[in-house]
């Protein structure tokens, strides 16, 4: 019987041919934790009797969720991570380095056929590189840090076939929001997802990361794509390692196949307070916004900043809007500095904050006031997500966020591309 991508990777990593429903203990290639989850993992590591990491060069801790620290209590947790990294010899990415997922992508530690776990739900982002990457909690993280292993129930796979190409002004963010709206927040629970079709192949790697990143918002364990020449070209910029991609067999068995025509899509938004509350942007056009956020592990890469800059070039952010930009990493920050993208954004009125997660998770860097409305490129719009339960969050593409920043209201970005 043919295998899906995830069945192939879990077969390789567990040393026997597996199919959906099997329980496996598999070897992990890389393990990552961030500052919201690592401190608990360090406690669990000690309670489990852990003394050494299975392989220090395959473990990374990232300080990104509250970075730089806004309070003394957070500072103490950061210090706990730094001390642990020094003691065990694992990699540590500190304040200003960037969002954990972008750092994993850029550091060449993840590639096709790999199995990666991260104590952050958006670890599924690396599925765009044909890796089985999934989010776990702190105790699982500690177990993997010690043993280099993790147990899994091999999930069945839901396949999306995205026909056609996205029209101008419609981006990968619009596509994934639409797919989540279609299958809902638990449409892929306990499942892996494969994204395929012409529309996916036509996307840049940056665009593909956005899609894989949000697989967890439909409940998926992983959001996988096949490796192609774009994947290998992208990887060659960051690492010289050789990889063995895992392609699905033609007779692989899928739980469900969903086909969509990407060419017919228009810009989308997720309305408060659910990621699957998705409508065409035109249905909410004209709603005033108080804050616009560009960044996060979903849409903080150079291509995203450049898309926004193209709309903001020669224009000003509306006086009623705070426009907050958080590049996804130091590398993205530098590239955007060098090519003039950041100059354009800052000149237009952007407030650029340290690469990291702050605005998305409500820790600092842009908590909205009561009754305010935010449009953001992030991946979650739950009530209180940005730190205030009395604010509203709309999720949209970088172009839609930039358009709203200029006009002060939710606006179809295609009006700026004419």
């Amino acid at each position, binding site marked *: 019987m043919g295998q899906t991508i995830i069945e192939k990777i879990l077969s390789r990593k567990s040393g026997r041919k597996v199919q959906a429903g099997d329980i496996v203990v598999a070897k992990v290639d890389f393990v990552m934790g961030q500052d919201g989850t690592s401190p608990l993992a360090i406690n669990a590591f000690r*309670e489990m009797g852990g003394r050494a990491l299975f392989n220090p060069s395959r473990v990374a801790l990232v300080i990104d969720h509250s970075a730089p620290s806004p*309070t003394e209590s957070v500072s103490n*947790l950061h210090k706990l991570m730094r001390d642990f990294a020094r003691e065990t010899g694992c990699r540590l990415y500190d304040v200003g380095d960037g969002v954990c997922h972008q750092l994993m992508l850029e550091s060449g530690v993840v590639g096709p056929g790999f199995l990666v776990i*991260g104590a952050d739900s958006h670890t599924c982002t690396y599925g765009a590189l044909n890796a089985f990457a999934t989010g776990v*909690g702190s105790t699982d993280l500690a177990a993997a840090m010690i043993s280099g292993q993790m147990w899994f129930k091999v999930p069945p796979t839901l396949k999306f076939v995205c026909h056609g190409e996205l029209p101008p002004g419609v981006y990968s963010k619009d596509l994934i929001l639409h797919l989540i709206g279609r299958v809902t927040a638990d449409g892929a629970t306990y499942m892996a997802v494969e994204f395929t079709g012409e529309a996916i192949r036509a996307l840049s790697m940056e665009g593909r990361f956005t899609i894989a990143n949000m697989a967890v918002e439909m*409940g998926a364990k992983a959001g996988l794509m096949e490796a192609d020449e774009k994947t290998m070209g992208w990887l060659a910029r960051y690492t010289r390692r050789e990889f063995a991609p895992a392609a699905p067999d033609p007779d692989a068995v899928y739980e469900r196949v969903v086909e969509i025509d990407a060419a017919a899509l228009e810009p989308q938004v997720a309305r408060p307070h659910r990621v699957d509350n998705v409508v065409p942007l035109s249905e909410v056009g004209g709603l005033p916004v108080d804050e616009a956020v560009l960044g996060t592990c979903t849409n903080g890469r150079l291509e995203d900043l450049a898309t926004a800059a193209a709309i903001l070039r020669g224009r000003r952010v509306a006086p009623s809007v705070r426009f907050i930009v958080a590049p996804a990493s130091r590398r993205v920050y530098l590239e955007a500095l060098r090519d003039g993208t950041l100059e354009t954004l800052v000149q237009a009125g952007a407030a650029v904050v340290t690469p990291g997660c702050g605005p998305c998770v409500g820790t600092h860097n842009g908590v909205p006031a009561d009754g305010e409305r935010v449009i953001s490129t992030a991946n979650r719009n739950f009530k*209180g997500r940005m730190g205030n*339960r009395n604010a509203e969050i709309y999720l949209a593409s970088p172009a839609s966020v930039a358009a709203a920043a200029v006009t002060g209201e939710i606006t179809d970005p295609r009006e700026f591309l004419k």
Partner: protein
Amino acid sequence: MRLKGKAHKFGDDINTDYIISGKYKFKTLDMSELARHVMEDLDPDFYKKIRPGDFIVAGRNFGCGSSREQAPLAIKHAGISAVIAGSFARIFYRNAINTGLPVIECDTSAIEPGDELEVDLEAGVLGNHTRNTEIRITPLPPVMLKILNDGGLVAHFRKYGGFHLD
């Protein structure tokens, strides 16, 4: 394992930000402090309403969203003995078992707020004493039952020095 308590009812898709907000979870490892804020964005007084042993009862996709283990820990430290839901998001489900919080999957549509419930995990039955009904519960996968019976993944690792799931 037999558990007894009153039902506190919530809806579908209760995400981990609602269970414990990001603005608190990054600040401390003191779970009894985090427990005071459990479900705060949905019901600011929820913590005060809990009697030790009570249940959180919810609809589909409980625990969706982030991987924060503070979510099951805050629930546990607030005195809740188990979460009963129509279905669970997978990371929360794993985290709950790993930290020793029982999670029970069954049809919750006929359970009303305040109902007196009793759960027998081994027998796979949930009794609703208020309504004199019995509901079958979906058994935990054997792997998870083993980890739960060991007292969570930390205790499992202390016992075996690694994964020992066969």
